[in-house]
């Protein structure tokens, strides 16, 4: 029920609140309408009525789609709260601005006559902030945090056994895009368009490392290599790892594709090349590392076994 309210009903209200003022007051608005004001409420910018509708409704619609996507079942609780917060801020802000813009322009002869109430400049963002806090608080309770007491997975590693797991993940789209960008860069350079060549080459260089991830687990820890050459490489020592589990990654929840965050600065990082199967590793100091990889369940099982064995060795 709450999911439907936060993901469908509330965003729909923003959408209606952004459309309705224009629809009701359409024939009372000047063309163009005032769309920007000084701090004292004097109009200093204008745009066509249709552009104003497209702008406000467009953002409200984006926010509504965002809210719907992040509130779908099975999502990470903190992700839902942040996502709903951002969507609510954008949706409510543009709805409030749409109302304020229409009120200021109502029955004005020309856009220069459309004075804005000084308070509106404070009320609209203030209202958006309050709505954001309420919505993200409500969203926080949507998914109870997964119980950590669930037994950790295992591959049943014997006391005398040695093991390694190698795997990874691929994104053919990034690979093809990166190679295409590099090829186009060469063409642009040959044609003498150096700035375009440099931009395309940079795009290619940025895309290629995220076309492929190579992941290795052994008793030294976890190693992640980027790109076909497995370079650059990130290594996490086994001593820093507490546990691991399989995770269903949705890139939008973790800030998109590529290497996001920082273990040192934010205590959270993610190496994501595609959605789906992934590995979530809990590290010392409440840090988390998320990695896209096929067969993450086996990787998690082996990591847990190696960590457990290391702990036992430390005790004995």
């Amino acid at each position, binding site marked *: 029920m709450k999911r439907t309210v936060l993901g469908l009903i509330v965003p729909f209200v923003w959408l209606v609140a952004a459309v309705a003022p224009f629809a009701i007051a359409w024939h009372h608005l000047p063309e163009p309408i005032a769309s920007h004001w000084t701090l004292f409420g004097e109009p200093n910018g204008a745009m066509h009525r249709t552009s104003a509708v497209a702008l406000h409704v467009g953002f409200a619609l984006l926010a509504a789609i965002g809210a719907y996507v992040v509130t779908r079942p099975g999502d990470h609780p903190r992700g839902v709260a942040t996502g709903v917060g951002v969507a609510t801020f954008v949706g409510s802000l543009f709805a409030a601005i749409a109302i304020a813009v229409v009120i200021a322009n109502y029955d004005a002869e020309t856009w220069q006559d459309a004075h804005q109430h000084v308070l509106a400049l404070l009320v609209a963002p203030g209202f958006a902030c309050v709505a954001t806090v309420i919505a993200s608080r409500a969203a926080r309770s949507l998914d109870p945090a997964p119980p950590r007491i669930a037994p950790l997975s295992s*591959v049943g*590693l*014997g006391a*005398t*056994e*040695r*093991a*390694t*797991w*190698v*795997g990874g993940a691929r994104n053919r789209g990034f690979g093809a895009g990166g190679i295409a960008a590099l090829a186009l860069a060469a063409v642009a350079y040959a044609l003498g368009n150096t700035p375009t060549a440099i931009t395309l080459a940079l795009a290619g260089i940025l895309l290629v490392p995220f076309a492929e991830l190579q992941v*290795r687990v*052994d*008793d*030294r820890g976890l190693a992640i290599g980027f790109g076909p050459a497995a370079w650059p490489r990130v290594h996490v020592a086994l001593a820093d790892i507490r546990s691991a589990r399989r995770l269903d990654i949705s890139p939008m929840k973790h800030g998109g594709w590529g290497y996001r965050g920082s273990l040192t600065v934010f205590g959270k990082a993610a190496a994501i090349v595609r959605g789906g199967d992934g590995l979530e590793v809990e590290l010392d100091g409440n840090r988390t590392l998320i990695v896209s990889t096929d*067969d993450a369940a*086996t990787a998690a099982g*082996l990591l847990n076994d190696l960590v457990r064995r290391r702990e036992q060795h430390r005790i004995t």
Partner: protein
Amino acid sequence: MLLRIDPSTDEPLHQQIAAQVRRAIADGKARRGDQLPPARELAASLDVNMHTVLRAYTTLRDEGLVEMRRGRGVTVVANDSAPRARVVELARELLAEARRHSLDLRELKKLLESLS
């Protein structure tokens, strides 16, 4: 692909490594075109001599399951390898079991012929 070996058993380490790769191919965990870890890296991961890994890779190459190219590493080539790798693996197990029961190769062959 999970590769595990147990140095405390009698089975030579290179055979254990080869068996693990065969099993990975049979289970579909390693597919045609997949790269196996470079020998040096796998040796470091499993804490064995690099020549042990190379010996395992050579065996797999001779069985037609992988291809070894200088500078390009070791690639899984077996096309419909899954059943083949499985049969090779079972045959090895059968051979080992037969030896344990003092059954020589000729007798084993006879046994297989009588069954087919």
